[in-house]
């Protein structure tokens, strides 16, 4: 892990419908926000789409199970828009099926977190890392690094 870069001017869009988790995430990211990271919340896909267009975020954190359109639906739409086509996206979901992970991978996500299996710390660190490596093209990133291996749940840095 390298020294955390300056998050000033960087924008993160979090799409998560659970208020408790949102609160905790926002709380966890407060340190980074103090350093200049802009964090925007959306509680459903439609809202997320609007905000993604406005914000042109550097990172999208996406829940898959959402009211209305699913995270996958959102991701497909986002990928079709010029401004957000290549925005690094991290999945933050409690779905853990291989099929879901593969689907996400096909849609170019850079990491997949099963929320219950990761601590806030680990998620925050991942955000920092992704923001630091934003130039990396999602599809060509080498060797996936396994962060946590129990029960076959893992996160991949792509």
């Amino acid at each position, binding site marked *: 892990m390298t020294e955390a870069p300056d998050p000033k001017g960087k924008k993160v869009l979090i799409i998560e419908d659970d208020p408790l988790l949102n609160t*905790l995430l926002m709380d966890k990211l407060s340190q980074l926000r103090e350093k200049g990271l802009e964090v925007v919340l959306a509680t459903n896909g439609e809202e997320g789409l609007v905000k993604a267009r406005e914000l042109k975020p550097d990172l999208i954190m996406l829940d898959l*199970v959402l009211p209305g359109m699913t995270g996958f639906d959102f991701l497909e739409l986002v990928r079709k828009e010029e401004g957000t086509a290549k925005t690094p996206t991290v999945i933050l979901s409690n779905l853990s*099926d291989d099929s879901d992970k593969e689907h996400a991978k096909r849609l170019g996500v850079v990491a997949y977190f099963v929320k219950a*299996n990761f*601590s*806030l710390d680990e998620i925050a660190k991942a955000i920092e890392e992704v923001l630091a490596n934003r130039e990396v093209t999602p599809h060509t990133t080498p060797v996936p690094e*396994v962060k946590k291996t*129990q*029960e076959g*749940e893992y996160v991949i840095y792509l």
Partner: protein
Amino acid sequence: MRNLTLRAKFIIVLIGVSFVPLIFVSTVTLVRFQRVLEADALKLGHEVAATATADIKSFMISQLRILDNVTVLYHPASPVTRDVAERVVENILFKNESFNDISVVNQDGKELVRKNRLLAVAPSDLRSIHDSDAFRSVLEEGLYIGQLYIVNGRPFFDIGRQIVDTQGVFAGAVFAQIDARTVTTVVEKISRTADPGSRVYIVNDKGIVIAYSDISYILEERDLSSLPAVKQIMRTPESDSISASYDNELGVRVLGSAYPMTIELLEPNSKGPVLVNWFVVVEQPESVVYADASAAAWFLVVVLLSAIVLSAGSALYFAGLISRPIEALHTAALEFGKGNLAYRADVTTRDEIGDLARSFNATAEALQKTVASLKNEEQITSAERNKLRLVLAGVTNAVVAVDTSRNVILFNKAAEALTGYSMREVLGKPVQGMIKLFSDDLEITVDQYCPVKSDLEGPVFRKNNLKFLGRNGKEYMVNLVSGRIHEGENINLGCILTFQDITREFAMEKTKREFVSIAAHQLRTPLAGLSWISEVLLSGTKGTLNVAQKELVEKSVGAVHRMIELVNDLLDVSRIEEGRFGVRPSRQSIYPMLTRVLDALQKEAKIKHVTLTSKLQEGLPELSIDANKLEFVFSNVVDNAIKYTPTGGSVVVCAERKGNEVVVSVTDTGIGISEPDADRVFTKFFRSREAISYFTDGSGLGLYVAKNIVDQHGGTIRFESKKGRGTTFSVSLPLSRSVLPDATSDNAYTQAAQVHS
């Protein structure tokens, strides 16, 4: 003849054999007999004719002798007077009734004396006959016998003879008119000696009757020259006799014989015999002549008829004797032909036909048995077929059988439902016409699921989760197994395709999967919240906790994490059971994975005061493994080892190559596993009594999932344990063998497919 029955042939042959010779012999005999009779008749006729001739001859001669008496008149020594001459002549005339008129002539043919029985002859009535045929004949031949003539209704003929004197010198002649009825008397006399109905008559050389029992014939000068016998003898007077069979003028069928009446009168002075050209005709009615023959013929007919009756009867009887068994055989054969196999030929004779019938019956018996057994076999086969049909109709899987040309020969109800085609539509048609199969949108061809040439037996193609496109465009999910049997080619059986329609199960599985996902999501979200809250509390950003508070929050974290692990384990079990728990292997070293496991668990070992060490052999080859999944396996095994090893104990992780395997063993000095529980260690939710008494937490799912993962790597996991002394878990991973295919990907179970893998 050819179309006649045997019986008729027998009868014909028997009759032919017995009758033709009989009839022939009879006919010959009859004809011979007739000839004999005819000869007898002719002989009789001959005798009659001879008698007649002799009689007439002697009559003639006697007449001529009588006339001889006039010779005395010419005795030169004593010449007679006229009166004397007249008296002599008169005397002769009246002594012989046959004479009607006598005249004596001199050398010159001049009548000297003439006397008539009825008329007085005056001297003036004397005439010269010098120029007459009679005188000339007498002069030249010495005798004269004239033709018959009628005077005043009476028949006469003239005779005359030369008279020589005592010196033998021609002196004159004497002529007499003879009543022809005297001849008739002769004929009548003779006729009486002949057979009744016969007639004897004399005709002259013109065929005119000159002697006949009925005087009217003579008076009428009846001409009988038209009768064949008369006609022929007139034509050939020199022949001895003529005989012919004909109907005479009275309409009677007669056997007629005619004989020339040769009367030779040889006188001393005559130059030669004088022939009288008369003919004696003897006619005997055939009815009389052949009376015996016809009687014999009738007798023969009667004999023949009785013979016919007798032999026809016996022919019938014998033909019956021979043909009845044959007919019985025929009837039996016909009955047999009609299918009446129980019919037997009723023949009891001890001859060849009887043997034949017995052979026939024996053959029939054997055939009946054979047919019965065949029928039985057929019934069994038919029952088998029906059973198979019923079974096939009953099974929910679609079953399609094709011949070696891959045309459909069997199509059950389920196949009809799946494809949308009826059996009648598809029988004999190429199977690819109704089978549309796709695997990941790639069509599976008939050559894949039913290879034409294959020495393989049993399942030749097996693939799950295929998309089947029905006739109406409806999509199904199916599992396909295609099989061949060894004797298939002999009965023109190519493949048997069995489709398991899993459309419903597939949908249900999807639903279930979604449910599990949602459930997991629903459980995990609050657990994640709890976990994170604890994390925040412990981080101290919300104020520092005192020791007691911190201890409580840490306990809360432990509880939450156990719940999270439980959810994760349950999810894994759910995936294993759905067959979705696949490994994604890649070639890599196992060191990094093992190191991560050891590193991650050092902390826990330290806490428990258990030494965790490793002995990893160097230079182990790369293996085809799913590192994430194997890490889970070893984490579990090592974690268990630490958990169930009392303080002060040790856990050693070893890795070494053994033959074609890399064996990773985890040895502890823990509580051990008791014998009775050994078999159930890898079953889900199982925890040994020792484990429960030692450590109450634990889902009992870890080793179940671990075994599944190892199995999918083609490896084995086993353990040795001594209760209270420790346990060694060993995981063997193959070096070269590829891992088992991912159960969720639909690769083949088929042998054919495995050849390529």
